[in-house]
């Protein structure tokens, strides 16, 4: 009897040990991919990075040197285009949701933003293609920027609404009591108070679209030249990396790694900085 009880106790202890070991190993294994990917990109990418990489155009196969200057500029332009669509809709929409969005209309808009967030980005690319590329008759930076802008909207709406709702109601009322019109209080006081949080959301959204490839391959497309015209195809870092990665040439592979290194530093850098300055947890 006594022996049996001890045996049972022992078994429970063993089971518990196995459980603790298992979850600990899971946590360790879950970190490994980050280290592997970062390490690999760092090792392969560092060798191919130099000043030319940032300043020069891509060279044809076999020709030494060259870089991704046009793609870096292109990605920046595409991000600005995306912001010019995503920010007004996201921020003003978020303000409306926070202040007036209690009823059915608010639910509809919130729900739409959620659905939009779940749409695969390649499908958003198809939408931009059908809406803009077919009508214009050619690939263009505008179509790419539009697709990226749509992808930004859900994140911006959500953070704007949450940040504005976090500002104490008494601040709004204090403004009204001073005789300031409600809309002015919202813009001059409430929005400014919430701005640092909203900015966090914007930066996270920018980091995300900077790494998007799928919505660009048949909207902004790609070009090996400097491109500044918005109604023409535009190079981006991601699409250039993609083209280099699936090519059979070692020199191009090296450039793909170098491009990845620059991209990963920018994206993880923004994400980490933003995290440091905000305690809000974001899943994205």
């Amino acid at each position, binding site marked *: 009897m006594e022996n049996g009880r001890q045996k049972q106790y022992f078994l429970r202890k063993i089971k518990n040990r196995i459980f603790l070991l298992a979850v600990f190993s899971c946590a360790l294994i879950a970190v490994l991919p980050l280290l592997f990917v970062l390490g690999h990109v760092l090792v392969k990418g560092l060798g191919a990075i130099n000043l030319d990489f940032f300043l020069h155009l891509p060279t044809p196969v076999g020709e030494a040197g060259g870089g991704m200057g046009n793609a870096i500029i292109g990605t920046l332009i595409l991000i600005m285009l995306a912001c010019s669509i995503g920010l007004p809709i996201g921020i003003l929409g978020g303000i409306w949701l926070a202040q007036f969005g209690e009823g059915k209309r608010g639910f509809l808009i919130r729900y739409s933003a959620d659905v939009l967030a779940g749409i695969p980005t390649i499908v958003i690319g*198809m939408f931009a293609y059908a809406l803009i590329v077919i009508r214009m008759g050619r690939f263009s930076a505008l179509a790419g920027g539009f697709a990226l802008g749509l992808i930004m909207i859900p994140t911006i709406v959500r953070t704007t609404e949450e940040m504005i709702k976090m500002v104490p109601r008494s601040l709004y009322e204090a403004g009204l009591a001073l005789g300031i019109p409600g809309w002015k209080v919202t813009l001059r006081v409430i929005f400014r108070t919430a701005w640092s949080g909203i900015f966090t959301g914007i930066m996270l959204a920018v980091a995300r679209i900077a790494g998007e490839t799928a919505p660009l391959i048949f909207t902004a497309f790609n070009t090996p030249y400097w491109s500044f015209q918005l109604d023409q195809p535009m190079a981006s870092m991601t699409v250039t990396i993609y083209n280099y990665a699936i090519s059979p040439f070692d020199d191009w592979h090296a450039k793909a790694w170098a491009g990845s290194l620059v991209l990963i530093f920018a994206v993880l850098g923004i994400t980490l900085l933003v995290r440091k300055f905000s305690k809000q947890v974001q899943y994205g």
Partner: protein
Amino acid sequence: MRKTGDAWFNLVTFLFALSIPLLLLLLVAILIGQALPAIKIFGAGFIISSSWDPVKETFGALPYIYGTLVSSLIALAIAVPLGLGAALYLAEVSRSRYKEYLAVMIELLAAIPSIIYGLWGIFVLGPLFGLSMLSGGVILAIMILPTISAISREVFRSVPNILKESALALGATRWETVKLAVFGPARSGILGAIILGLGRALGETMAVTMVIGNRPEISASIFAPAYTLASVIANEFAEASSDVYLSALVELGIILLLITMIVNGLARLLIWKTVGKSNIF
């Protein structure tokens, strides 16, 4: 005067907010419009046919639907145990000061662009597993791991401490506490996290395209190349030469859209039930 200012402000912000559902509506309408020719020609046979021949203009979606579902299921088979285990460690077991760093490192996986996973996959997973369904599944597993672990961690944390403490007070071990007091209330939230991970995996494009081998065949072996809905769109959309071809590709996009919308909707319901509506899509 003051009233009109407020009314205008309300109106303008409302119009911007309203543009979100309108854009969504426009997206669905335009895609359906583009897919209409293919829907008319192939009808319901599109979903069960596995012939994809742009020259003869016969199109069927089955191999792509199969590839999308199977690669995502492989991803779940790997990422669910790992993600839940890591979340349990971070939420219930670890008392280490450094566990926050561990959590951030896992969540950073979500910030790495898909194209970089693809590049890494070509040169690291390719030699290991070939360009195959398995490589696609593994790369997807890495990409959805942070989603599953971050949300289920939140779900585990939302289980009232009083339940865990009661179990411990009765002399339960850690494992028994988790089994008795945590899994029960967390069940639907965990399911939501898993299904949300599934939604991410289904729609993921670039990384999978680069490692799955891109061959529209239904093979029983996970070491054989396969093809997904998102991948075939990425590869063929820009060069679709005829209207029917383009239309068939858009119809693939609509199928993908439908699957992900249903999956995401389900996930959202389940997560709302446990954690509440803030913070999580």
